[in-house]
């Protein structure tokens, strides 16, 4: 850190449009002591803040960066300014003077970056980060150093000794342990723990990814195993051996079926087919077999038809012959009984003629009877029944004879004859009908038999005898039927079983694939070269983290050892300034080193080892803060580091005696490095007036607008 060849120090300040300063003004503080006196709101603190801003930038108005709450509300630019804000520090540097200028645009937002320039002897110009690096290289203060060893801020006058971190930092600086502290701080920033957390987090995410990647195929495996379980294949059974057994069985069962139904060699499975090939083949097996089965079933149907036809023809032949014989016998019996139909028809013809004659006779008789009745009527109408009404000839007894003639008529006899003839005709008709029916029955049976015999002959091979031919043909047909049925049953059985077998086979095949996927994915991470590389990187990170921890431990151990050597000198220095500032202070201040789990902290204790900061009053605390402040600055000077003190209203809570002591301390220190003090007119300023030497410069700051600096 302290590689600078020359202790840089500021000698002049130029301010333009900064806080209370509108327009431009400058302050030369090349002297040992520069005292800025002024009433409240005169602008004294603004001058000191301008130095801070020039050196440290906008972080001075951040409550977080500075640790001073009220700084968060500060506005850097003069609110009524019409130009940019600029502060320039003239620095004494090796080989001459340099100018450090920080500029802020008029309308810049609060967190907007400033422009930073540094002009060095030889017209060398640095800007931005180059300037920051140069300031760091020369040992100019960062905020922590500034707060601890350069500036006594009135806003946080006592924090230097009451805040553990600030106190430890300052004392460690006084003990010459800045490098160790910086190393510890750097190691703290690197945070080995974060490396570990990052590595663990990465591995955790990978493990979760692996778990997720495994779950899907594993769930698939579980699902397939459950399906197989339902098909009575246990999870332990469901392996490659089972798959192979079933592969062979499927082929062995399919081959005879395929051959039986007449599939071609290309359509049949091969013994050396893989399980996947068998599975693919199995998907088309049913349709292939069914395609062959359709003509086979048709053939069987035809065959069964033939057998049925032959059997029924053969079986119907004899009854038909018997029936024909019966019909013949019946016909002949009727013929012998009634004669031939021709005879019967001739008889009926005769009867018909007789009937016709009788009916004529009956008609003529009827007409005669009508005339007789008419004659009787005439007789009765003439009133004389014994005389002919026409010729008036006597006709005694005529009426009576007429009546007797009408009564006897002859109708009944004719009717009787008619009835007899009709009855005989009816009988003949019935006999004729019987004969015709018997004749028809005989003829029908005869035709049927002839047809049957013709059919049967058609089924038999030419030249074969009927009975033997039928028997042989039936036997041949039945044998063929049995063969066909056997083939069809074999195929049906195979197809019926094949569905379930192929399902199990497919599941086994899928299970194997799913297990392979699960296995493959499971092995992914541990086998992946990228994972091995990641592990190597994590190993490196672990090594690095351990090295950092070891370095931190070493730094702490070294700090501990070094502090033991320097602690007496620091105690002396603090007590020296404390005795000047607070002459009545009776306690002896000692720096006490305390270990925590990860660092060393420093306390200020009395001779009995009791913590001082917890028991001192405000005046004593302020005095001790100033004493450690001077002591710390003194050590920086002795180390050849840039140093100048800025004291902003340092007399808080100090009575006249303490203010006199502080004036003496300031006068003593300013021989080592420049001191700039801003303060209200007080006993302290009067004491500095009294002690003023030619190298001191005393100025009065006027708060009128704009702020003016008047040398006294």
């Amino acid at each position: 850190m302290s590689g600078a060849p020359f202790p840089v120090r500021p000698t002049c300040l130029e301010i333009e449009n900064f806080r209370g300063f509108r327009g431009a003004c400058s302050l030369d503080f090349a002297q040992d002591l520069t005292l800025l006196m002024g009433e409240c709101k005169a602008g004294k603190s603004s001058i000191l803040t301008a130095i801070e801003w020039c050196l440290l930038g906008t972080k001075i108005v951040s409550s977080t960066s500075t640790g001073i709450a009220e700084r968060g509300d500060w506005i850097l630019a003069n609110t009524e300014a019409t130009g940019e804000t600029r502060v320039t520090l003239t620095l004494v540097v090796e080989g001459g003077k340099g100018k450090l200028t920080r500029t802020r645009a008029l309308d810049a937002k609060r967190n907007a970056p400033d422009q930073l320039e540094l002009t060095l002897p030889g017209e060398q110009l640095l800007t931005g980060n180059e300037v920051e690096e140069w300031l760091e290289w020369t040992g100019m203060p960062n905020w922590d150093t500034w707060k601890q060893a350069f500036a006594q801020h009135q806003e946080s006058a006592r924090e230097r000794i009451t805040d553990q971190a600030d106190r430890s930092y300052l004392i460690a600086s006084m003990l010459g342990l800045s490098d160790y502290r910086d190393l510890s701080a750097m190691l703290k920033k690197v945070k080995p723990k974060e490396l570990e957390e990052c590595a663990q987090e990465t591995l955790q995410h990978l493990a979760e990814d692996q778990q997720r990647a495994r779950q899907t195929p594993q769930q698939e495996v579980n699902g397939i195993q459950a399906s197989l379980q339902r098909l009575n294949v246990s999870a332990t059974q469901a392996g490659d051996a089972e798959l192979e057994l079933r592969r062979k069985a499927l082929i062995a069962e399919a081959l005879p079926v395929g051959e039986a139904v007449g599939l071609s060699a290309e359509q049949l499975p091969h013994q050396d087919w893989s399980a996947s090939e068998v599975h693919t083949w199995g998907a088309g097996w049913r349709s292939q077999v069914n395609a062959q089965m359709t003509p086979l079933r048709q053939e069987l149907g035809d065959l069964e038809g033939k057998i049925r036809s032959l059997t029924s023809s053969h079986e119907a032949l004899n009854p038909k012959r018997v029936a024909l014989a019966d019909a013949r016998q019946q016909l002949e019996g009727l013929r012998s009984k009634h004669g031939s139909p021709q005879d019967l028809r001739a008889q009926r013809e005769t009867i018909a003629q007789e009937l016709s004659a009788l009916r004529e006779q009956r008609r003529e008789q009827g007409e005669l009877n009508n005339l007789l009745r008419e004659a009787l009527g005439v007789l009765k109408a003439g009133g004389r029944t014994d005389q002919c009404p026409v010729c008036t000839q006597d006709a005694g007894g005529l009426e009576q004879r007429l009546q007797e003639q009408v009564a006897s008529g002859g109708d009944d006899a004719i009717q009787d004859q008619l009835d007899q003839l009709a009855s005989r005709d009816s009988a003949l008709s019935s006999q004729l009908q019987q004969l015709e029916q018997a004749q028809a029955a005989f003829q029908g049976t005869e035709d049927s038999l002839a047809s049957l015999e013709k059919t049967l002959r058609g089924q038999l091979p030419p030249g074969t005898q009927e009975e033997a031919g039928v028997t042989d043909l039936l036997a041949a047909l039945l044998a063929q039927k049995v063969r066909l049925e056997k083939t069809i049953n074999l195929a049906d059985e195979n197809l019926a079983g094949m569905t379930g077998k192929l399902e199990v086979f497919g599941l086994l095949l899928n299970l194997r694939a799913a297990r392979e996927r699960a296995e493959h994915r499971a092995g992914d991470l541990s086998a992946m070269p990228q994972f091995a590389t990641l592990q190597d990187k994590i190993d490196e990170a672990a090594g690095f983290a351990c090295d950092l921890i070891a370095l931190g431990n070493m730094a702490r151990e070294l700090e501990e050892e070094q502090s033991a050597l320097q602690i007496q000198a620091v105690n002396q220095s603090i007590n020296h300034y404390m005795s000047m500032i607070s002459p009545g202070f009776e306690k002896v201040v000692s720096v006490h080193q305390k270990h925590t789990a990860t660092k060393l902290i420093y306390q200020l204790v009395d001779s009995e080892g009791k913590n001082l900061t917890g028991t001192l009053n405000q005046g004593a605390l302020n005095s001790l803060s100033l004493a450690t402040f001077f002591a710390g600055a003194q050590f920086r000077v002795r180390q050849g580091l840039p140093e100048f003190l800025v004291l902003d209203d340092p007399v808080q809570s100090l009575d006249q005696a303490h203010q006199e002591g502080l004036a003496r301390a300031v006068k003593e220190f300013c021989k080592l490095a420049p001191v700039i003090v801003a303060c209200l007119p007080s006993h302290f300023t009067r004491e500095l007036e009294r002690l003023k030497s030619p190298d001191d410069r005393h100025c009065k700051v006027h708060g009128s607008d704009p702020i003016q600096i008047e040398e006294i």
Partner: protein
Amino acid sequence: MQHETYQRLGEIRASVGMEYGKILQKILAISLLETKVESLVERSVQGIDLEMVIGGETCAFEVKTSEGDTIKLSRKDIEGLDRLVEAGNRAYIVVLTNGPLDDLIFARYHPGEVPVGKELSSFFFRAYQEPALQKRIKSTFPVVVDKHAQTAVEGRQGGLDKILEQYAEWGRA
């Protein structure tokens, strides 16, 4: 670690409960014996579980397992390991945490560098791991776990002892 090995170890842990540390120690012993060591002795002293002679050198192992991702070494463990190192031995802490991707770590013990009583993740021990030793059992450990998982679950320590007794290089002190 292969996931199958991790699962097997998980099954063993779930079955044997508190005995898991000892069971793993014996599985580790079998794994080391499978790599042809000159001798391997199980010891029942603080800070040393196994003592192996290989290439004429003695290596002592303190086996630490964890259900989580950290392990803790007691003062007695550390003192035991310190004594071993003082006696000129190479001492190792064998760490197996319970992450799916965690591997066995053979961490060389250096006195003063392992905090006492503090939960330490496997990350800490990775800085001290000895790749040669880990490589030695990388392939045998999963095989031994797979082969003897059933014995570990059913026969516990006694079952594994019977297997260990079959090795001429095995001993107990």
